[in-house]
């Protein structure tokens, strides 16, 4: 109250408050300015240059040639295809799995918190550690093949066979990311008023009908969020591919992702301009898919 009155009586000049505001904001402005805003502009600039990194740094303006080169680069298409396949399988699977786990945990199970803590373990473990453990499990004579052979299923060379290498990473990431979204679903489920279910029960709806007609529609905004975050996260796949393949994206480009391609363009081929162009391509794809998705979900608030 006090503050508002003072402000009204003197609407324009209040240097002390401005000063305090900027002192609070200054570190943020400096850091975001130097390491986010400036880099965005710099990236636009880089994408139009041929960059030479020999001791110093030299630029040569080449217009849109970095972008036209994208279309001709076979590895860009391979990386896009791998990443798209990865997104198309991982996002729906982890979303459904997360929902199933959340609904199960929310159905009056005993020790709900303990299950949740346990399931959440992979999400707090570093991707490096998880990838190393899985590489070992995926070894030709590793635990997974031992298990598959034991139950009479065919075994695979998970790391070396281009047909299954990416699937190995998919399985690992579904396993490690689903619990994160499970927690989000769980919180949303707890916000659904119990009275809705009681009313539906009085109307003779069984549990399945309650799930289809009450739970799913009310979870729609959360599902939008889970899918959107899932899409953004999976399009940025890097750590697992890098560690799996030792940075090459192999075997035979099977685990090459877009971000790994950016990394290689920068550090193997020293083509900063081209790398910036690939980064913009990735950003465009992510933004386009997020917009399409928003349409499909009917313009939710996020």
């Amino acid at each position: 109250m006090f503050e508002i009155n003072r402000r009204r009586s003197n609407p324009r000049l209040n240097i002390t408050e401005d000063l305090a505001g900027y002192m609070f904001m200054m570190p943020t402005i400096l850091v975001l300015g130097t390491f986010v805003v400036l880099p965005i502009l710099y990236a636009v600039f880089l994408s139009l240059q041929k960059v030479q990194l020999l001791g110093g740094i030299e630029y040569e303006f080449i217009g849109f040639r970095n972008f036209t080169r994208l279309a001709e680069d076979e590895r860009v298409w391979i990386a896009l295809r791998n990443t798209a396949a990865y997104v198309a399988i991982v996002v729906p699977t982890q979303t459904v799995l997360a929902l199933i786990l959340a609904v199960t945990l929310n159905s009056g199970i005993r020790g709900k918190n303990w299950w949740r803590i346990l399931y959440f373990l992979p999400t707090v473990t570093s991707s490096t550690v998880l990838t190393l453990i899985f590489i070992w499990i995926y070894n030709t004579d590793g635990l997974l093949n031992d298990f598959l052979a034991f139950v009479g299923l065919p075994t695979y060379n998970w790391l070396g066979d281009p047909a299954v290498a990416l699937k190995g990473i998919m399985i690992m990431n579904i396993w490690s990311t689903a619990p994160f979204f499970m927690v989000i679903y769980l919180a949303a489920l707890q916000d659904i008023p119990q009275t809705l279910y009681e009313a539906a029960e009085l109307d003779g709806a069984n549990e399945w009908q309650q799930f289809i007609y009450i739970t799913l529609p009310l979870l729609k905004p959360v599902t939008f969020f889970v899918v959107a975050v899932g899409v953004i996260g999976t399009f940025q796949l890097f750590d697992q591919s890098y560690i799996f393949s030792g940075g090459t994206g192999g075997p035979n480009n099977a685990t090459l992702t877009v971000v790994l391609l950016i990394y290689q363009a920068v550090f193997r081929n020293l083509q900063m301009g081209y790398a910036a162009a690939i980064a913009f391509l990735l950003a465009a794809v992510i933004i386009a898919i997020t917009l399409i998705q928003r349409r499909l979900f009917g313009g939710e608030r996020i």
Partner: protein
Amino acid sequence: MTKIAGFSWLKALLYVLLTLYAIVTLIPFLWALSASFKPLAEIVGGKPNFLPKNFTLDNYKQIFLQEPLFWRWLFNSVVIAVSVTLLNLLLNSMAGYALARLRFVGKRFWFFLILTVLAVPAQITLIPTFLILKAIGWLNSYQGMIVPSMVNATFIFMMRQFFVNFPKELEEAAQLDGLNTFGIFRHIVLPLAKPALAAQAVFVFMGSWNNFLLPIVILFDPEMFTLPLGLNTFKGQYISYWNYIMAASMVFTLPALGIYAFFNRYFIQSVTFTGGKG
């Protein structure tokens, strides 16, 4: 009431499913943990066994005593993750508080800018950040790892939302008592923001501790590596010495798990915070 007969079957089925999924979750960890206590011969030869037959601590001794850089990597990881966390807590709350409560010229612009920054994929800024750090000579340094990560638009936004919903009366009372803005922030606002700070702390710490992309881009001297990069080097150096790799992995995982076990409540809270209300 009428459901009880069918219900118990369903319940039993649910418990079976939950247990199966718990096994699926735990097996990789237990398998890695057990390998870290086995000699190599037991890992490569014969049938898989979960309980080590020849229990040994040699793998841990190897990485702690024979790998001089392991301690260094652990140290680097701790320094970077702790600094990044503390700075984020302070700076994000300051910015969030200013955006929620203080009045200053251009506030709407800065808030809009932070919302925009939220939507920019990190890959776009990665290469320029590398070049900027190179230009100011910060590659391969602690400050190069810490400064670009010391504020976070997501958590500034989260803190702003938190402070917007915060009761104003205490601050007004403190103001009448003659406390200035910094005093109010330090003595009134921060102590009351503990739950939001704890949630943020866990998230930022885990993110920094587990980060792979940023260090692999800006750190190239093995002395400066963080543990994820070090582990990745181990993988190349100890090809198929899974006993050492798993022991190192366990050492790396333990602090994160400890923090998770301790702050679990806040962790879940922060996931739902970023999820539900972001």
